């Protein structure tokens, strides 16, 4: 069943939002406009290349995703939430989630987990015993190294 969820999600979201299955959906905070359809995949607002008529720098025939997002964020459907969330700072995309279901990731919280440096935390120093450099010193027989290690 769990393998079917991403497929089901894609079937629903592809025709409506041209969903790219980034696995960390932010449609609700971008005026229901998918930022992954921006050729530069910008998740925090438009670039400086928007044309005078609101057209995309890369695909002039397409209206800039963020021009649409800004317009739609004022839509009467859900103005309070959409307007408020438009300016949230969205963290870097976790490329490991690509192709997975954002619905599942929303449930598990995987879509909101950012690297600790994003929130300003400093990670504890790595255990020196665990680093590959230290491990190497202890390996006498280099043929035991994984294939491709020498390259």
């Amino acid at each position: 069943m769990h393998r079917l969820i991403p497929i089901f999600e894609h079937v629903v979201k592809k025709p409506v939002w041209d969903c790219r299955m980034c696995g960390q959906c932010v449609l609700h905070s971008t005026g229901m406009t998918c930022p992954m359809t921006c050729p530069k995949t910008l998740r925090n607002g438009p670039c400086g290349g928007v044309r005078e008529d609101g057209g995309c720098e890369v695909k002039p025939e397409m209206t800039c995703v963020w021009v649409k997002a800004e317009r739609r964020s004022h839509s009467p459907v859900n103005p309070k939430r959409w307007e408020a969330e438009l300016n949230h700072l969205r963290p870097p995309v976790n490329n490991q989630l690509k192709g997975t279901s954002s619905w599942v990731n929303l449930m598990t919280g995987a879509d909101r987990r950012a690297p600790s440096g994003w929130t300003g935390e400093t990670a504890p120093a790595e255990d020196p015993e665990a680093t590959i450099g230290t491990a190497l010193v202890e390996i006498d027989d280099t043929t035991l190294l994984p294939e491709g290690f020498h390259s």
Partner: protein
Amino acid sequence: MSRLSDLLADGTRPVVTAEFPSIDGGGMAAVERAVAELLPYVDAVNATDNPAAHAHASNTAIAIAMKQHGLEPIMQVVCRDKNRLAMQADIIGAALFGVENVAILTGDDVTAGDEPEARRVFDLDSIQMVKVASGLAEGHYLSGRAIKEPPTLFVSAVENPFAPPLEYRIERALKKAEAGARMLQLQIGYYPERLENFVRGCVDAGVTQTTAIIPTVVLTKTGRALSFMDDSVPGISIPQTTIDRVAGAGDKEAVAEASYQVTLELAQHALSLPGVSGIHLTDFRHDGSLPRLVEDLKIGPSQHKEQHAHRPELV
């Protein structure tokens, strides 16, 4: 902090920044020639990162070379060509050589360049990268891994007050300021009223309390140059009346003079706005108009000799 950030914090005079020409061949002599041309007139200069998606000598190499020749670099970092690992490494690496100013940009798309077949990266967007760069100065990579004795960094960004969605540009400037940008260099623009609205909005929103705003003007010589920017550079639009004023000025010399006057007026207007901390000059003329412009505007180190004494001699 960097000389540029000290000068901005000091606030006694508008700062002048400019664009370093793209360097390909010619060795360090080519860099030295460009440094000598700019050094007397500007406070800091952008080391560009594959501008308009054309490959050139890298941002890091040029920024380090500028630093070594006594010219204050602002190292541009664009999100188009490199992922988060490479961008962090470039900033940390250049900082080893004393490069403290970094400017984070989204970057023109690869289709703007001469290698449109290239893969576009955009692993991070510019606001995310501003926050990541600020984190480096605080002593950690994006992963959270600590950096012992972190570098001093003055992180800046850019914004385009002239491209839609116009109102949203102020909110985006605020978002960049909140992410850690301490200076915003603005895109070239020919609509003074749009600049005025943007700067006023930034002052009202509190952007200028943390972040210096530096509008850009460009020195051009012909009406054709203006038409080209208007037609072919996404995000830049020029009123037809401005193009006509330059193109219809008369002979070649009159056109060049009219073009200069347009730039001078835009610069004077930009510098008159409360909330503006300086001006960024892009020179497409290379005919001595840049020294003339700073003299007419009475700005920059050449017009404030007392500052000049602190500047290292050109090696």
